[in-house]
């Protein structure tokens, strides 16, 4: 199952990516909102979840979310917003019809896994294959 990571910080992108692989998902990475939109346009099978950072160059998470909820093709993809300053950010983010949850930075491994699982269960066999090794 595919999960799109939209995060400008390379180190964090690598960490998320490693984690998702471990959990049996197929991570796809974008450095900012525009890149994410480009990737989504060309995808045959849409991701089951998008992990979205808010503050990014070129196109930030707020703009990406605004475009996503207006696009009928993309609007139903659940979004996990990764925010460092929850109170300020919640006021600014465009809410849409698709599910949206906030995950406070610094991200906790167990919390992240449970949220991801809540939206998209990984395939049984890939998960079991991937689990034992870090």
């Amino acid at each position, binding site marked *: 199952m595919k999960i799109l990571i939209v995060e400008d910080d390379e180190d964090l992108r690598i960490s998320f990516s490693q984690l998702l692989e471990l959990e049996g998902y197929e991570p796809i990475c974008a450095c900012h909102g525009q890149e994410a939109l480009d990737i989504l346009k060309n995808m045959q099978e849409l991701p089951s979840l998008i992990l979205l950072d808010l503050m990014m160059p070129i196109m930030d998470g707020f703009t990406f979310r605004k475009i996503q909820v207006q696009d009928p093709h993309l609007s139903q993809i659940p979004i996990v917003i990764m925010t460092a*300053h929850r109170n300020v950010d919640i006021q600014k983010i465009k809410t849409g019809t698709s599910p949206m949850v906030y995950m406070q930075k610094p*991200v906790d491994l167990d919390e992240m896994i449970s949220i991801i699982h809540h939206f998209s269960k990984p395939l049984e066999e890939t998960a079991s294959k991937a689990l034992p090794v870090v």
Partner: protein
Amino acid sequence: MKPKPKILIVEDENNVALNIEQCLQNLDYKVCGIASTGQEAVEKTHSFHPNLVLIDIQLKGHLSGTEVAEKIISKFDIPIIFLTAYADLKILQRAKTVQPFGYILKPFKENELGTTIEIALYRSRHQKIRNQQLKLALHRAEEQYRLLIESVKDYAIFMLDAKGHVATWNSEAERISGYSRDEIVGKHFSIFLTPESIEKEDAQKYLETAIETGRTENEGWHLRKDGSLLWATIILARVNDDHGNLIGFSKIIRDLTERKKWEDRQKFLMDATEILTSSLDYYETLNRVAHVVVPTLADWCCIHLLDERNNIQCVSVAHKNPELEQWATEIQKRYPVDLKGTHGIANVIRTGKPDFCAEVPDQLLIENAYNEEHLSMMRSVNLKSYMTIPLLARGRILGCLSLLYSEQKRDLTEKDLELATELARRAAMAIDNAKLYEEAQTAIRARDEFLSIASHELKTPISSLKLQLQMTQRGINLSENKTPPVHKLFRAVDLSAKQVDRLTLLVDELLDVSKIRSGKLSFNFEEIDLVEILKEIQERFCNEIVHFELIAPPHVLGHWDRFRLEQVFVNLVGNAIKYAPGKPFRIEINQTFQDAIITVQDEGPGIDKEKQRRIFNRFERGDTSERISGLGLGLFIAKGVISGHGGSIDVESELGKGTKFTIVLPLQGTKEQMELAS
């Protein structure tokens, strides 16, 4: 020796008269004359001034005895004694009303006559003394009353007759109304009423109420002799005689004009203050205040404010006539006030001193006109008087409030100026509060923005660090003594260490900011070569995508802090790379006699003018629309560091044309540093 009392005999029978004369002489009185008719009696009384008159009650002729007695008593106040042959009841009754001092029946004995005369003279003397005493007492009482009425201040106290005409007058009445006693006595009191009041027939109503209920009281505007208005309370009370018949009215006028004006001023200020405190949008608020000023205080009101670029802006115009208001606004737009002007508004704003003129001379208009058209416009306004008051708050001049009078000239008093000054003070306070609120809001927004950025910046590496550590932790199985493979462990530890370095840098940056804020940023000055530092930085950053050109003499030596200058230039270079990725940039170093001048020029997107003014503030970033990593503290720290070296940092930029930072660094540092070094 006591003179003999003089007695006049009024007797028509001559022998009787002579007989009486004989008796009186025997009794040692002086007979000053004998009158045989009433007319003669009156004449002789007038000529001789007798002490007593003996009158035959049955006098023949034109005047009877009692009539003569009445005349003598009322005219000369001389005691009389009646003589009569018989006591007719009717005559006696009549005689009693004259109040004679004695009554003697003929024929009488000599000693009887003597006794009656002595008693009459005694009683008469006694009564005269008593009358004099009473008269004196009455005079005193009247004088006291007069003094009381005259000494009362602020109260006009006087009498009206039964028809409402002024009968008496006091000096305060003259002062308050302007009418002298001669002018007003006999005039109807409606002379004090305003035309509106007369139209309502108030005068008649007041009199009727006073007649019916005993008194009436009212408060309102009245007219003075000169036509000016007087605010007064009036008490009109009915005055009766002893039998309860109306004989007139007492009227008391209390002059409350000053109090009324004070109350009106207070009410005006309260209304204005309510408006001023009703909103924090001061443009709207000032506009409303201008419209309260007109027409209560002035025919025309303008409010000018000094903007951030020190231009004078007319923010509000109100005119009594709404059509002229539009026109007045037009004039203000067409001929804005120049701060350099030497008159009126510009002068008030520059000096902070009020300007007022009770009678505007044409010369003033000529001096202030920009051109012929402006002059004719100003003349058509028909400006008579004006006041311009500075708007001052916390020692700063924010602008000014102008009140103009176009219909008729105003005698601008201290009170008018006081009121306008108080209004200006309150308006300035409201503007200041609104500005402070706006600044506070901006600061809060900047702080929230900064918190958001700082949280993000700090939490991003913490996220990576935490995930790496948690993933590694999960890979370790203690019971089976298993660890992840070494290459994975190395990767996790390496990435973690990198996050710790990133965090350290951010925390250092935050600490620097707090040190600069508290003035505790410390420097370690030593002799260093600036060119060497920049060459190192160039080497560090230069790669295939960064084109970093350095133009410098071989060496530029100065007394500086190596670590801090490195920090500044790394930040500037970092900014150039961040904001203008892939575009070349250039650092040029020049040395003058005293300073090193360093310019950092990029070909990035540029910074707009508004932003340039704030770029060295805390929490400001060149670009907020798209995220550029960093806390936005770099330039604030740079300015702190350069200032600490006694130098300066400035920015020049234009949108789309890149940005140039210019740093001037004194070679020998600040005076303090030199002193410290020596």
